C-alpha cells in the first residue's frame, strides 16, 4: 500500500508529497507564557486526534524557543498556539518571526480569544489562520490540515 509510485515527474518531490499522504500530520500544541487557560487546548488536542492527526502536546508555560525545539525534534508540520491572555498581537508574530529566523516554513495557527479587529494584523504578521470560541471539530481539523499542506521542508 505504500510501494513507491512509478517515477513520473521528480521522484524527490513525489516522496515529499508522500509524507503528507501516507503519514499522519504532526502538530505541536502549546500555550505561551503564564496564560493558564488550557481547557481549549485540550479540547483541540482531542479534536485533532479524532481527526487522525498526531498531536505533540506541550501544554502550558512554553516559550518560542521551547516550541521551536520541539518542532525540530518532532519534525512537526504545524504549530498550534492557544492564546487567551490578550497577548496575541505580540506573542503570535513573535512565534512566526522565530520560525522564519530559524529558516523553517512551518505555519502557525492561533486559537482562543482574539477580537475581530486584530485578525487583519495577525494575518499580515504571517499567522496562517485564527479560530475562536465555538470553532467546530471539523473547522479545527480542516484548518490544521490546510496549514500542514502549506508546510515546506
Amino acid at each position, binding site marked *: 500500500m505504500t*510501494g513507491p509510485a512509478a517515477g513520473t515527474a521528480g521522484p524527490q518531490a513525489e516522496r515529499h508529497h508522500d509524507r503528507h499522504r501516507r503519514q*499522519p500530520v504532526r502538530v505541536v500544541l502549546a500555550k505561551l507564557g503564564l496564560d493558564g487557560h488550557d481547557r481549549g487546548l485540550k479540547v483541540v488536542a482531542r479534536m485533532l486526534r*479524532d481527526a*487522525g492527526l*498526531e498531536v505533540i502536546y506541550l501544554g502550558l508555560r512554553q*516559550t518560542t524557543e521551547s516550541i521551536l525545539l520541539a518542532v525540530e525534534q518532532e*519534525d512537526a508540520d504545524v504549530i498550534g498556539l492557544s492564546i487567551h491572555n490578550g497577548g496575541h498581537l505580540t506573542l503570535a508574530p513573535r512565534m512566526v518571526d522565530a520560525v522564519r529566523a530559524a529558516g523553517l516554513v512551518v505555519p502557525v495557527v492561533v486559537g482562543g480569544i482574539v477580537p475581530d479587529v486584530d485578525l487583519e494584523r495577525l494575518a499580515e504578521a504571517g499567522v496562517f489562520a485564527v479560530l475562536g470560541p465555538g470553532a467546530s471539530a471539523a473547522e479545527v481539523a480542516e484548518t490544521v490540515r490546510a496549514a500542514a499542506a502549506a508546510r515546506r*521542508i
Partner: protein
Amino acid sequence: MTVEPTGAPAPEHPAPPPSNPAGSPPDDVAALFARTRNGDRRALGRLLTYTEGGGPLADAVAASAWPLTGGAHVVGVTGAPGVGKSTLTDRLAQVAIDDGRRVAILAVDPSSPLTGGAILGDRVRMGSAAAAGGPFVRSMASRGQSGGLALAALGAVRLLDAAGHDQIFVETVGIGQVEVDIARTADTTIVAVSPGWGDAVQANKAGLLEMADIFVVNKADRAGAADARRDLEHMLDLGHHGDWRPPVVLAVATTGDGADELFKHVGEHRRHLRDHRSEGDRRARQVAEEMRRRLHRWVDVLVAQPSGRAAELFTEVAAGRLAPSLAARRLAGELGRADGAGAETGG
C-alpha cells in the same frame, strides 16, 4: 565548527542552517545524515520521520546508520499509564547529562485504534526537554502497526545511536506485546510501579516482572511504597533470575528523589552485561532477533498481500494444483535468493 560533508555545498551563512540547503534535495538521506552527525537537530528530526514511515527511505536511513551504531546504552522504561514514566525518564536524562552523556529519549504512545490519530503528551512531563542542552526527545505514535512498531522504534533507536547519543531512553506503556517487544530490544529495562498491590499484580500478569532488570516503586511519597517494595522482593524470591537479581528502588520522580540511585543501578547493570556476557554475543543475539522479526513481518505482508512469485504460488494452491506445504517450501527456497524488492517490510 565541523567541516561540511563532501557532496553538500558549503552554506553561505554559518548559522542558522537552512532547512534545505540549496542543491540537496529534501529527501537526500546522505546529506541529512551527514548533518545529523554534526549535531543538526532538524536533520535528525527529518530522518526519524523517514524511519517511522518505513519503506525505501527508512531502509536508506538504516543503511547509513548501521555502521555507526553500537555506542549507545539503551534503557527501556515501561509500566502502567500514569505511573510516572515520563517524569522519571526526564529525571534520569538529567542525571545522565550531568554525568556527561549525550542523551536521547524516544517516547512511544498508542494511537487511537479508531482514527489513527494520537495525543503524544510525554513532553509535558519532560521539563529538561524544553531547554537548550537538554536531551533530544522524539515522540512516536504506535500507528496501529503491531509488527511494524517495534521495528520502527528499533530503527529510531539505531538512528539516535548513530547520531552520537550514548544514553538512550525508550519510554513505552507496559500493556501489550508490542511494548514488551520494544522493551526487549533495550539493553537494560526499568519497570516502574506505584504503591498499591494493583500495579505489582498487573505487572506480573503482563509478564513485566520477567523482563525487568531494575524495578522502581515511583510515587514513594504516597502510602504503601514500602509494602510495594516488599511485595516485589517476595516475587523475586519466588521467581528464578540468573546472576542478576533486579534491585528494587524507591523514587519520587516529581522531586527527583531516587533518580541518582536508579541511574547508579542502570550503570551497574550495564557493567554487569559487559562482565557476564561478552558485548559481541549480546549484539549478535540482538541482531539475530531483529532479523527474525523482520523476516516474520516480511512473511506476514507477503501472505496478506501476495505479489509476484508469491501470488503465483497462492493461485496454484487455490486452484488445487499445488499442496500448501510444497508452495510454502518453494517460496521459502526462493526467499533465500530474493533481494526483497517489492516487499514492504516497514520500519
